């Protein structure tokens, strides 16, 4: 048995890597800038931020319910919409707790959040498909009253969704330099689901294309917008 030939270099970490230091005047400037008039910073706890996000979602859902009740939507429809919204509120809260609760930088949280970012829109589109009661061909849906209703419903859902997403992004502003795009995507998805369901409580249409376009696409669109905004708002 031959002994292995020693390699030309030891392990990378044991090599004599240089330890560069910056000039003393640069260090002094940094120290003075960061410690001048230093005072304690009032920090919002993760629990407080989570509570704010849930409050924003609940407010939007309450507005949706009020809108539905005001526009004489049938009691059964309202009750069904409210049940769906309550179910998804649990999912939203879970996404918030798992996606934003644990401090970023832990490896497991990134995997969990990646799974959530894929699972939430897939599950939501599945939910919309199952809750559709009727189906008309796309040609019929894309013209006339159906199209204009889809447009107005989608705009309102987008507005409410953007409100919730904006709230989540603001509540967690500057907290995630490591994965701001992923966190932004989750914020967009949470807001999108919130907006789509809030409008869904008051929306009388149960047609499949309407649900996919006016309620489903909003979630995806806000996910993409959240991803773009996350880079700006969530990274310090």
């Amino acid at each position, binding site marked *: 048995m031959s002994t292995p030939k020693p390699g030309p270099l030891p392990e*990378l970490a044991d090599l004599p890597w240089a330890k560069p230091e910056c000039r003393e005047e640069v260090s002094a400037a940094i120290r003075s800038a960061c*410690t001048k008039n230093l005072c304690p910073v009032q920090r919002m706890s993760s629990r407080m931020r989570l509570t704010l996000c849930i409050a924003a979602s609940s407010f939007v859902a309450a507005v949706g319910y009020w809108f539905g009740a005001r526009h004489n939507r049938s009691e059964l429809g309202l009750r069904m919409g409210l049940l769906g919204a309550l179910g998804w509120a649990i999912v939203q809260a879970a996404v918030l707790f798992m996606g934003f609760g644990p*401090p970023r930088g832990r490896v497991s949280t990134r995997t969990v959040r990646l799974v959530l970012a894929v699972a939430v829109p897939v599950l939501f589109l599945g939910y919309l498909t199952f809750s559709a009661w009727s189906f008309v061909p796309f040609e019929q849906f894309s013209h006339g009253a159906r199209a204009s209703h889809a447009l107005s419903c989608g705009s309102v859902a987008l507005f409410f969704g953007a409100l919730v997403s904006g709230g989540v992004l603001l509540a967690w502003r500057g907290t995630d330099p490591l994965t701001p795009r992923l966190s932004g995507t989750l914020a967009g998805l949470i807001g999108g689901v919130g907006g789509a369901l809030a409008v869904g409580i008051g929306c009388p249409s149960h047609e499949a294309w309407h649900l996919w376009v006016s309620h489903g696409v909003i979630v995806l669109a806000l996910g993409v917008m959240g991803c773009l905004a996350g880079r700006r708002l969530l990274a310090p």
Partner: protein
Amino acid sequence: MTSYSVNMWPALEVARLTFERLPSLAESTSEQLMERYVDGEAEAFEFLYRRVSPNLMGYLLRLTRNRERAEDLLQITFSKIHRARGSFLKGAPVLPWILAIARRSFLDERRSAQVRTEDLSPDGSLPEQQHEERALPAELSDALEVALDRLPETYREAIVLTKITGLSVAEAATVLGSTETAVKLRVHRGYNQLRKELEQYSRTP
């Protein structure tokens, strides 16, 4: 008088317990130093700076390959840390948090440099880019730096973070926004390339 002494003892006891619970700054972890810095303790920042800045400067210098730019970025990074200290979440690891801020500052600076106008030389022409092929210096640590410089940026960054800065593969993956497998692969390939570069050094008498 009696009520004064009765009320005073619990307060003293709380103060003693608080004092005993806080580790000295030298013994504190970077996370504890960050917490105390956020709570307004200037001395904690001094310790944190001393602990973090060599790693950060090394990382930035190896990314930029330019001392002035690295020092500028070091200042930018610390000013961002100072402004964002209120949004540092309790329990988050400090070094990856700081390195991620430094990396984003570097990427932003490079992006803005791409659209920056070029300074003309005195005769009115554009300065030529210099692509010199440097020979490996005699000192091993200098030779290492030159060889590291020759690596592609992705390999270089992965090696700097894991082998020089001392992050775990998982932490480096979060800083780079990549997977652990990809980081391991980059380090492995970078190491092979580095080994080839340095064979020349080991052959010289």
